[in-house]
């Protein structure tokens, strides 16, 4: 595949990893903000190729994880209503609300459908004029343009049976919240390449300057990630804190201005709750006044939502690098991949699951040898 295989070359990757080993003289903690980057790092084993001191911290860039519980519960309530076709991206179906998930609503007779694009949901609304079609519009700046386009099209076509259940979140305020936390431990950031392809990276230089932290716009393929990490380490070692673009084939400084114009028309900035974190001021989008009639929360007045999180594990501490998975008292005891207490133990990408799986069968020495052949392999 052109534009993919070129960025998955194992030999070049090894050379880039060696270069990082040569440059790094001190431990650094680097956060990749985007869930897609986390996925790629774990899938390809990039973390195992790095020097022992370079620690990748997985940021809050997984839309599935940060969508507030209250909104999931609203989604479940709306999807369960007769006459509703509830459309969603696939992986939102498995996210648990207070009582169950969208799979269970589907099992109980709700019309829940996986679509690949919100515009497919608009088409469903056209084809089913007697049904209310709701699209679950979650995610970061990356998914926002398509979601915005769906209501834009629905408005232009005068559709009265399409609405959007919106919980958009924004990266820059989340980065600022992480950087301004009193116990911050992050030395540098890999900025989310696809978010920047939409928004550009003009929002970040003031943050890099204010907190004296280097930021590198980074892609998703192994060589992209290694290049992002390499550039970040070089800046850290030199005491620089600039915003660099290591994803030039996709990202421009100003971003996609057509998309930004549409976003400014359809959405307005709002305070937003992040699941498990709390409210971050001005960290999300909701539908603007001109499009409020397409807001599913307005259309379906869902009352009586009583959300309740169970007292969970210390995944938060693991994710921000404060503890290693094995330092959690539930690790390997109450919490295993079979009976997970947190998402980090659930998926193959999860730090705890990776730790559990590797730690169970390899000693530390074997683990080091099982990595890239480079020194200091880790099992992050």
């Amino acid at each position, binding site marked *: *595949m052109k534009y993919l295989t070129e960025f998955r070359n*194992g030999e070049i*990757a*090894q050379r880039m990893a060696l270069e990082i080993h040569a440059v790094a003289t001190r431990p650094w903690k680097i956060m990749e903000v985007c869930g897609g980057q986390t*996925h790629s790092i774990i899938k*390809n*084993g*990039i973390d*195992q*190729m790095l020097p022992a001191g370079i620690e990748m911290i997985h940021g809050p860039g997984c839309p599935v994880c940060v969508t507030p*519980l*209250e909104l999931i519960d609203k989604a479940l309530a709306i999807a369960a209503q007769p006459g509703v076709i509830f459309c969603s*991206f*696939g*992986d939102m*179906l*498995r*996210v*648990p609300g207070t009582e169950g998930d969208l*799979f*269970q609503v*589907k*099992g109980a007779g709700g019309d829940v459908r*996986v*679509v*690949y694009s919100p515009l*497919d949901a608009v088409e*469903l609304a056209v084809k089913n004029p007697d049904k209310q079609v709701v699209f679950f519009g979650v*995610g*970061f700046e*990356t998914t926002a343009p398509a979601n915005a386009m769906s209501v834009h099209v629905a408005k232009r076509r005068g559709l009265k049976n399409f609405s959007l259940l919106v919980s958009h979140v924004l990266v820059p305020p989340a980065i600022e919240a*992480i950087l301004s*936390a009193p116990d911050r431990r992050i030395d540098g950031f890999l900025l989310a390449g*696809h978010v920047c392809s939409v928004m550009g990276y003009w929002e970040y230089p003031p943050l890099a300057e204010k907190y004296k932290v280097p930021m590198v716009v980074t892609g998703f393929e*192994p060589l992209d990630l290694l290049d992002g990490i390499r550039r970040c380490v070089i800046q850290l070692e030199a005491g620089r804190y600039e915003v660099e673009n290591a994803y030039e084939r996709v990202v421009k400084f100003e971003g996609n201005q057509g998309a930004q114009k549409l976003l400014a028309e359809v959405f307005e900035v709002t305070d937003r709750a992040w699941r*498990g*974190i709390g*409210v971050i001021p001005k960290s999300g989008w909701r539908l603007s006044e001109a499009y409020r009639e397409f807001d599913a929360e307005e259309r379906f007045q869902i009352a009586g939502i009583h959300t309740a999180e169970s007292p*969970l*594990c*210390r*995944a*938060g*501490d693991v994710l*921000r690098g404060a503890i290693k998975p094995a330092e959690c008292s539930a690790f390997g005891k109450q919490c295993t991949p*079979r*009976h*997970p207490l*947190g*998402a*980090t133990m*659930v998926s*193959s990408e999860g730090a705890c699951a*990776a730790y559990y*799986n590797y730690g*169970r*069968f390899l000693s530390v020495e074997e683990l080091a040898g*099982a*990595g*890239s052949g480079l020194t200091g392999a880790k099992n992050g």
Partner: protein
Amino acid sequence: MSYTAAPDFANWSCPLPLADYPTIVMGHGGGGKLGNELVEHLFLPAFRNPELENLGDAAVLELGGGHLAMSTDSYVVQPLFFPGGSIGELAVNGTVNDLAVSGAEPKFLSASFILEEGFALAQLAAIVEAMAKAAATAGVKIVTGDTKVVERGHGDGCYINTAGIGLLRPGITVGPHRAQPGDAILVSGTIGDHGMAIMSVREGLEFESQIRSDCAALNGMIAEVLAAAGAAIHAMRDPTRGGLASTLNEIAAASGVGVEIDEPSLPVRPEVQSACELLGLDPIYVANEGKAVFFVAPEAVDEILAILRAHPLGKDAARIGTVTAKHKRMLVARTAMGANRVIPIQIGEQLPRIC
């Protein structure tokens, strides 16, 4: 939930997917962990007997002095017709393959139809014709059957169940529990073709592609391999739902061994890889309907690969990994980057990702 005024990173945790459902969800049929748990905690305790406990693709039975293999499978695929085949070919080939990978020579099939009121007879005729052709190609007879009709809205047009009986070859004792450290792992061709062909025509996810289902009867190819090197083959399986990852995990668990694969050596068609990239899926979890995995003694690798590659269904056959005494009951892949990752069995269905 009440949110604190300031962002609270200390108590941040990700929500976890549910693993214990009080009702049946689609994932129970996804060929992953949920389905396995139904077998382990519901069906096995209720039906327990030595023949069932093997949990092979087919049960191995002693009857009237002979050794038989018996298997059954239900087919609920949507859409009923897809690039490269239909529910008809699937219903025949699926059961034929379950018998073939158990080391048996498939002989007789049953066919039961559950039809929905209003289903077009022309479509049913097309499905039945496809079954007849597939049975002739595989060299099996459909010798008994049943038809039921359910009210409109209670079925997806046409569901088919087939059961099959085959004759076990003397001296062949393959089984999912017989993989040994040192065994080489071979796959008979490209992975993920069937699942992505279905995905490309599924409502709501349609995309244009050249991908065709690999649906095919494997008994002919397997017979050639067994005739030439039967004693060297320890385990065989057709990686259907849940894909190659589920099959390799299941054999690792049944044999109490570790499985190591070399990820870049997995044969994947470029168009399947592209479609998977687009949807955020991993071909190793995507279904196949015409592929076999072999766990074989290392000295027989060249001979078996040569036989497979000479067969039309095995021309892309490849060696993909090795059995090890380390990391027992686990599948570990060596990535193109030279690093390792554990590939677990899926909880339920693989879902297209947001990002």
